[in-house]
């Protein structure tokens, strides 16, 4: 028996050696041809489509989610949201004399095949395993190849020659507005950060101011859908067939790039989805209108990602976009200083602990919890748990905050103690729900997103599996945050990294000014990218952020983007380094990000400048992209950061001058709420008229029915 099928649904799996030839690049079949408009008109490709990937290419790009030993290799499957996948053929090539141990294949943690080395096919050197679409998730898929005896997978399987063939058809589903969030959301798993903004109306010399703003909001809209992956935007007057596109402009400018019917449909602020001309597997979001003002509305609706486009439509015309009264946080809003919340509110559900399922929860801590003046304050954690243990068979668990053990608790039937801050909890807690109050110093947490996990252990030397079913954490457990003093110290790039402060005490971005000192495309792309990053960090659309070319003009907190030569000495007054010193430190390919306070009366207000700079304007975007990569962004701190392609980011604390104390409290936004516009919008007064237009005849008909329904004499009676 060559292959053992573990699931009835796998009965359709086939073994088909040599189905597709080797190809290292992604190839798409059939190759689309014809003019862009023809393609755009036909949203669906009828013919089947196969996409082939090399395993080594997948391994290079894979975001390994599972801990892989040497006996296991995990790759993420690059499924296209635009593609309706029918099946996946896993085409494995074995090394001669690779070993005598079986090879196990898992798809999304489900074992789909065990390959016996003694079998004929194995020895022939190639096996193709077919998995039907039902084994695939819509967004993230992981394929794991494991050897049973922990031998190196590479010694058994020739990953360079092994292939993965995804077969399906272009989907009509993806061309609906309802798929937008999923489509962009899937990019994080696939590592697809590149995004092209097609602005066909822009002039040869560069973008107009309104186009700069459209690009900023549209990029943020994409970013807010992309989780932690920051989009790397490019822009131009024509679409880019290699990436997904955002097509932005008034109807007459974009007309050549979309079907005529769609052009005729632009009767107001317009949002649509359509394939990229010439690249049907790529998605193009059309943000348009008859006038620039309508385009602005359309772009804004795309940025306000909770505005709820009707999912079944591929385009809509928006009536009106309303802005939020309260910060329109995309994910969970931060907790409040001084508040208490249950784990249930953090999305945790009570259930018995199972092996490898560590209870963990993520929550966003507000900046002001960490404000100065509150040192020594702590987060109170009240754990409610069930743990039927005996003194002879105790159970421990560790409380981890952001990967650091902050408390170890031992449960031994009649008492619980924890070792970091030793507190005895004495009660007969066996076989019943018990409570354990813990105090965790605030220093263990950080502003912004935090991860808290509870890791049970049966005993120091015993495997965790023994704890299965013997421990349950209740979702009624709670977290209490200390109160706050409304002041933080600036400059602090770590704060910017974690909370986007000082740019976003106003959650609509009305405190942020992005000044692009370089005139070129790269500065624009970098400006959009940085704004998008700040939007991701602050978890909300910064639709009132200002972006423009030239030197700063407002009294907002400024983000300057430009090459070193554009940074005049007067712009750097108060900076931690002069331009000359910076030029030494940065090097030709590197970049710097620094923050400083400008002169002025601190009490009347505060003003900071944050600068992203490189030696050459041409690599502003590339160097900026390095900055927002997770490993570099994580290292931001102090008031200066330096990095280069071959050098990880270093953070420095340079300023000796008086720190700036400011009120970090998040402000509500100025104007009104999200909910823009969807297919069901109706003018309130029209609606009232409609209701009356129905209710009055309804009442008359009811009256007629009631009167006509009388079957008995009613002399000398009266309606009451």
């Amino acid at each position, binding site marked *: 028996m060559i292959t053992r099928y573990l699931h009835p649904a796998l009965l359709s799996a086939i073994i088909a050696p040599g189905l597709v030839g080797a190809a290292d690049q992604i190839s798409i079949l059939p190759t689309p041809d014809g003019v862009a408009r023809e393609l755009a008109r036909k949203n669906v490709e009828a013919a089947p489509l196969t996409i082939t990937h090399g395993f080594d290419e997948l391994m290079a790009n894979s975001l390994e989610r599972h801990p892989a030993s040497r006996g296991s290799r995990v790759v993420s499957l690059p499924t296209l949201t635009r593609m309706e996948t029918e099946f996946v053929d896993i085409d494995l090539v074995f090394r001669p004399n690779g070993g005598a141990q079986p090879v196990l294949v898992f798809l999304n943690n489900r074992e789909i095949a065990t390959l016996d080395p003694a079998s004929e096919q194995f020895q022939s050197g190639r096996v193709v395993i077919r998995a039907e679409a039902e084994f695939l998730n819509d967004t993230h898929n992981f394929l794991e190849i494991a050897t049973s005896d922990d031998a190196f997978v590479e010694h058994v399987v020739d990953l360079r020659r092994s292939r993965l063939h995804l077969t399906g058809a272009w989907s009509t589903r993806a061309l609906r507005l309802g798929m937008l969030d999923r489509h962009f959301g899937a990019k994080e798993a696939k590592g697809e950060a590149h995004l092209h903004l097609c602005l066909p109306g822009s002039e040869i010399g560069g973008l107009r101011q309104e186009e700069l703003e459209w690009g900023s909001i549209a990029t943020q809209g994409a970013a807010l859908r992309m989780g932690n992956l920051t989009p790397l935007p490019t822009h131009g007057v024509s679409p880019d067939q290699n990436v997904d596109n955002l097509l932005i402009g008034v109807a007459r400018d974009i007309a050549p790039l979309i079907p005529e019917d769609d052009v005729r449909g632009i009767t107001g602020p317009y949002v649509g989805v359509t394939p990229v001309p010439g690249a049907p597997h790529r998605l193009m979001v059309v943000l348009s209108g008859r006038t620039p003002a309508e385009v602005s509305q359309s772009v804004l609706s795309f940025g306000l990602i909770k505005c709820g486009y009707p999912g079944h439509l591929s385009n809509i015309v928006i009536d009106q976009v309303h802005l939020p009264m309260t910060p329109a946080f995309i994910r969970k809003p931060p907790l409040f200083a001084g*508040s208490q919340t*249950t784990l249930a509110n953090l999305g945790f559900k009570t259930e018995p602990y199972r092996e490898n399922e560590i209870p963990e929860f993520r929550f966003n801590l507000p900046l002001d919890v960490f404000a100065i003046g509150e040192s020594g304050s702590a987060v109170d954690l009240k754990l409610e748990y069930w743990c039927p243990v005996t003194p002879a068979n105790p159970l421990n668990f560790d409380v981890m905050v952001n990967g650091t053990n902050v408390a170890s608790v031992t449960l031994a039937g009649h008492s619980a103690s924890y070792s970091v801050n030793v507190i005895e909890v004495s009660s007969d807690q066996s076989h019943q729900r018990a409570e354990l109050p813990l105090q965790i110093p605030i220093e263990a947490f950080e502003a912004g997103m935090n991860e808290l996990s509870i890791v049970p252990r049966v005993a120091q030397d015993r495997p965790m599996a023994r704890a299965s079913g013997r421990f349950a954490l209740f979702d009624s457990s709670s977290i209490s945050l200390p109160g706050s003093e409304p002041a933080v110290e600036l400059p602090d790039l770590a704060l910017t990294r974690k909370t986007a402060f000082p740019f976003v005490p106003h959650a609509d971005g009305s405190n942020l000014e992005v000044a692009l000192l370089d005139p070129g495309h790269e500065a624009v792309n970098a400006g959009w990218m940085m704004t998008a990053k700040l939007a991701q960090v602050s978890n909300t659309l910064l639709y009132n952020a200002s972006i423009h070319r030239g030197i700063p003009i407002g009294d907002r907190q400024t983000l300057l983007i430009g090459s070193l030569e554009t940074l005049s000495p007067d712009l750097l007054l108060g900076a931690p380094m002069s331009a000359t010193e910076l030029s030494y430190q940065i090097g030709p390919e590197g970049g710097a990000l620094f923050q400083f306070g400008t002169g002025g009366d601190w009490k009347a207000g505060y003003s900071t400048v944050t600068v992203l700079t490189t030696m050459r304007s041409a690599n502003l975007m590339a160097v900026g992209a390095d900055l927002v990569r997770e490993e570099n962004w994580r290292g931001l701190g102090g008031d200066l950061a330096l990095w280069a392609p071959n050098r990880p980011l270093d953070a420095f604390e340079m300023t000796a001058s008086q720190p700036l104390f400011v009120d970090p409290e998040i402000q509500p936004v100025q104007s009104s709420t999200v909910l823009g516009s969807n297919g069901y919008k109706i003018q309130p007064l029209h609606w*009232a008229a409609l209701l009356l237009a129905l209710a009055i005849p309804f009442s008359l008909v009811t009256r007629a029915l009631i009167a006509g329904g009388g079957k008995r004499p009613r002399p000398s009676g009266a309606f*009451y």
Partner: protein
Amino acid sequence: MDISQQSEEPVEASGLSRFLLVLIWVALASLIVFIASPTVEQDTQVVMAMVVVGLLFILTRFDKSPVGRILFLSLAGFIVARYLIWRSLNTLEFHDYASFSFAIVLFLAELYGVAIFLLGAFANVSPFRRQPSPLPEDQEKWPTVDVFVPSYNESSEVLETTLLAAREMSYAEGKFKVYLLDDGGTEEKCEQRDPGARAGAIARKEELQALCKELGVNYLTRKRNESAKAGNINAGMEKTDSELVLILDADHVPAQDFLLNTVGRFLLDPMLFMVQTPHFAINPDPVERNLQTYDSMPSEQEMFYAGVQYGLDHWNASSFCGSAALLRRSCLEEIGGISGQTVTEDAETALELHARGYSSEYIGRPMIAGLAPSSVQSFIIQRSRWALGMLQIFMLSNPLFKRGLSFSQRLCYMNSCMFWFFPLARIVYALAPCAFLIFGLKIYSANSESFLLFALPYLIAVLMTANFLYGRLRWPFISDVYEMLQAVHLLPAVLQAVTRPKSGKFNVTPKRESMDEDFISSLGWPVQILFLVNLAVVGVGVSRLFQGTEDLYPTAITLFWALLNTLVLAGCLGAISERRIRREETIVKVSYRGRIKGERASTNFGIVEMGNKSCWVDGSLEGEGSLRAGEFATLLVQNDSGEEDLLRVRYNGRREIEGSKPLMEFDYAPDDVEEKAARVRLMYGDSQRWVDFQARRQKRHNLLFGTAIFSFFAIRGFFSHMRILFGGGERGQKHREEVGSLMPETTNAVLVPIKPKQAPH
């Protein structure tokens, strides 16, 4: 004679046009429900809610216009539909089993509330106030009537008044007879083994036989006490032969115009089987007495008798309430008399006759004066029987499926039956805030915005609708007090009806409670527990708000809910704080003029109050000492028809009533039956007295003012409860003065309680 010969032809709508109308109606209703869908975006929803509530507010003024009334109910129904759709689709989420279970229970309770709302709106959409029809001048054409007064254990004093009043009713000479149907004097009772009980039964029988002989009415009894009251009436029918039968409970004293106002209806409609009239209580029920609302607020029963019954009459679905109803004998005989499988045979009998195509009518003029149960205990016993009976009908003879009923009759009967499931819903509502705030169950998944958008307009619309339909008769939150008070105690009846609908008789155990001192009713414990629970919830909610919680809005909303519950339960606490009954007599405020003739003097006077044993007179004889206590005198009272009635009395002396001048108190000392009859005529003969009294209490308040009044009653009730609980109640003193202070300043009928109503047997 054929008493139906004068009837009119029924009004029939054309079949086709009616069908078309129904189609249009369904289409319009569907469209309205469709636009109630919550997929409309948020700001439109805000305007939607505000506009509709605003329209409801405006339409409140058009409750007398048929179309205005329907439009109001349509718009309120729209808000309800909108809420229901939202509630069903958006607020039920699985968090854990406990939460989900309670969430479903709460949702079912709300569904029940919506069902009752819709059924109630349907039943009351077009109330029809029917006027009495005059009888033909030729009295020969008047149908014959037998008046049945079934009795089981009532005292001869009570029966004497009722029988006398029945005898005194105005009707054609020789065309009606009065019968006492004595079930306390059956052969079974008179031959029972217990010698004491046997002797008591025989003595009572002889006393009643003598009474009937004296009054000139007929005494009937039977062999065995089978089928209780229904069997008693059926046995009476076997021995009599009139065309119509009037049934009067032993304490239901009829006015003189009863027959004149009701019999005429039977001459108009050959299919008419019943004319029901209201049960008017001349004493407060325990809630009214204990909350001291009797004089100022409409009685609980008035909502039914001066509201719902008009609505039911429109749909030819008037309820038969067992007494104060005139029935066509032939119809009753067709179904074997009053009978059924339930403990409310009256309602079941009407259901059966409706199903056979017979019609019913309702005349809303109160023409009998009866007694409401005076203690919480007897009140609960009465309501438990009603609940059990109506739910037995729901289970055994469900109106939805009963053959022969019209669609509207089905809905009306469903409304009447399903109402009695309220104990279940009430208990859920009372405990829901506790489930969230104390046990942390997630029973209602909604954010504050959605709640304000959907639930708040719904609550406002429901309250406004209740006020619109019944506001004149039922002030805000009074229903809540009555229902909450009964909820736990009615549960056994509800459960029995649901689980064992055919099982044995309802256990009637009237336990006489001493009413000569203030005390907390022994049935008050559920109210006390629920009050404490909700008070605790309020405490927890307030402390959470002060400590800060991220569930700020849910906590605030639940806290508000718990506060409302607490207020209602405070009212219930007042209702279970039994106040001492200070005057052991039924007293009617009157305003008769006349002359007192003593042995030595005479003078003009005004009778201010009349009881069954005494009357109180405002006047003085010329010359002090001309009438001494213990002396006999004669009152010549000018009655409503201008004639003089003579009452022999004995002077007791002057009694002071607080706030007014001393009154002369006379005990009746009748020489003959005619004098007794005169006294009954003067007290009970004029139904206009009851009409005027009710009209004075029937005032509509706006929601806010009504809520304020209720809050006052509830808080006062709470303190009254605390006073009895911790300070001890007032003990049996004879403070007649204070009772006087409870009376309104104006004259005419105002009455104070006498004895507890005898429980039905």
